[in-house]
């Protein structure tokens, strides 16, 4: 590139910054609908981060599943909350100092751990067992999912089926003898 700036790191920087900012705002926002919207902003940026990593399939799935389905259902739930009462709560809990101390402790712990694991080593280019440019992204996902990880995939399918059946069982109408 003749632009003098590394375009890739510029885009990554923007995406990472936007994700962090929207997540922090989502935590601090009082209005639950605004929180869901900020999480939506975060999810969309995450999808484009996946796109810059060259996995367009995961981007589309991220948009369909998280942005298109999960967050819409969140909005549904939020509609059932009493908003007027909810927005009057203080965003800070009573033992604020103690909580922030615990938070800082955890942060330090995490930093030390990360340093111990990654700090000493220099990052190396990951070596893949195949050439990713040979076929497109979708092909590789299907190839590995259905050839090497078929059993876990099917187990997940069965678990989801159980969840669906459970939901249907919970909402079914029980006919009592008086009604009939």
């Amino acid at each position, binding site marked *: 590139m003749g632009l003098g700036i590394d375009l890739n790191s510029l885009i990554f920087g923007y995406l990472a910054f936007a994700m962090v900012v929207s997540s922090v705002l989502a935590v601090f926002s009082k209005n639950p609908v605004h929180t869901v919207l900020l999480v939506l902003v975060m999810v969309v940026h995450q999808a484009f981060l996946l796109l810059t990593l060259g996995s367009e*399939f995961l981007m*589309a*799935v991220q948009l*369909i599943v998280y*942005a*298109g389905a999960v967050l819409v*259902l969140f909005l549904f739930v939020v509609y059932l909350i009493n908003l007027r009462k909810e927005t009057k709560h203080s965003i800070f809990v009573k033992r604020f100092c103690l909580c922030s101390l615990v938070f800082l402790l955890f942060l330090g712990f995490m930093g030390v751990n990360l340093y111990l694991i990654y700090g000493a080593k220099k990052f190396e280019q990951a070596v893949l067992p195949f050439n990713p440019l040979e076929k*497109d992204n979708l092909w590789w996902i299907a190839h590995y999912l259905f050839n090497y990880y078929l059993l876990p995939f099917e187990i997940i399918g069965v678990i989801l089926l159980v969840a669906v059946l459970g939901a249907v069982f919970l909402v079914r109408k029980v006919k009592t003898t008086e009604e009939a």
Partner: protein
Amino acid sequence: MEDLWSNLFWFLAGTVILLIVSLLHVAYLTYAERKIIARMQQRLGPNRVGPRGLLQPIADMLKLLTKEDIIPAQVDKPVFYIAPFISLVCAGTGIALVPLWENFVISNINVGLLFILALSSLSAYGVILSGWASNSRYAFLGGLRASAQVISYEIAMSLALLSVVLMAGSLNLGDIVRAQINSPFKVYLIPQLIGFFVFIISAVAECNRTPFDLPEAETELVAGYFVEYSGMRFALFYLAEYFGMLVMSALAVTCFLGGWAGPFEVPYVPFFWFVVKVYALLFFYIWIRATLPRYRYDQLMDLGWKVLIPLGLINLFLTALIKLIF
């Protein structure tokens, strides 16, 4: 470097031209709708502005642009401002992924079909958020209805499109059309008749058009989710609805009716067949609006969950079976 800039230039030029052409289509779609419905109801329709009322959409646009932009006092302002734009962008972006003729598509990505599905699921946000932010009972009910409707019918639509993907073996819209041209029937309409049926009905429901226009049912909800909007913001919702129709028709043409291919080649007009098929589908949309009364809400849900989704699943199963045998 030279290549990059010229590529970028052609990409931008193509985008701008496509945007202008589709916006004009959307504007004249409203005119066509009024004229056709008028003819079906033995009225004249718009005939004052310009010859045969041809300038009516432009007059409408000018009127809406110059109208006052009213913001009610108790609305959630940022959400209220942003909702119409979410609606329009999500409805309109899909057209960039549709191949208009051989080798002409603005954005040729491998997961084109999935991306269009993602956009159509995101367009639910515009409706839900405008309904909530308006702080009005009519708008809120409209928003709730719309979200339930869009989520339900999206499943049926995805199932119908999955059978097409299974037959074509690709998620790229251009490849789907090429696979159709090489298939024995030339179009997927014949082997995928059930899928086409499911897709068209779900597409009408996705666009909130009659007979599934419950989110904006005038007799019950005044105008539904955009009842508090005025001026240009109201017009954006209107544009989004008609843009949605255009994109859904283009998607149906690409996935079921053979895209740009036709019985014979028309010289110098490579998009001839594509446009003819899209116009036929748009006429179909308008036709059913003039013909059918509105569904009741429980009927709508029954149709979606008890008829279309099982039909879509059966179709997917049959397609997989046929693919396995042949």
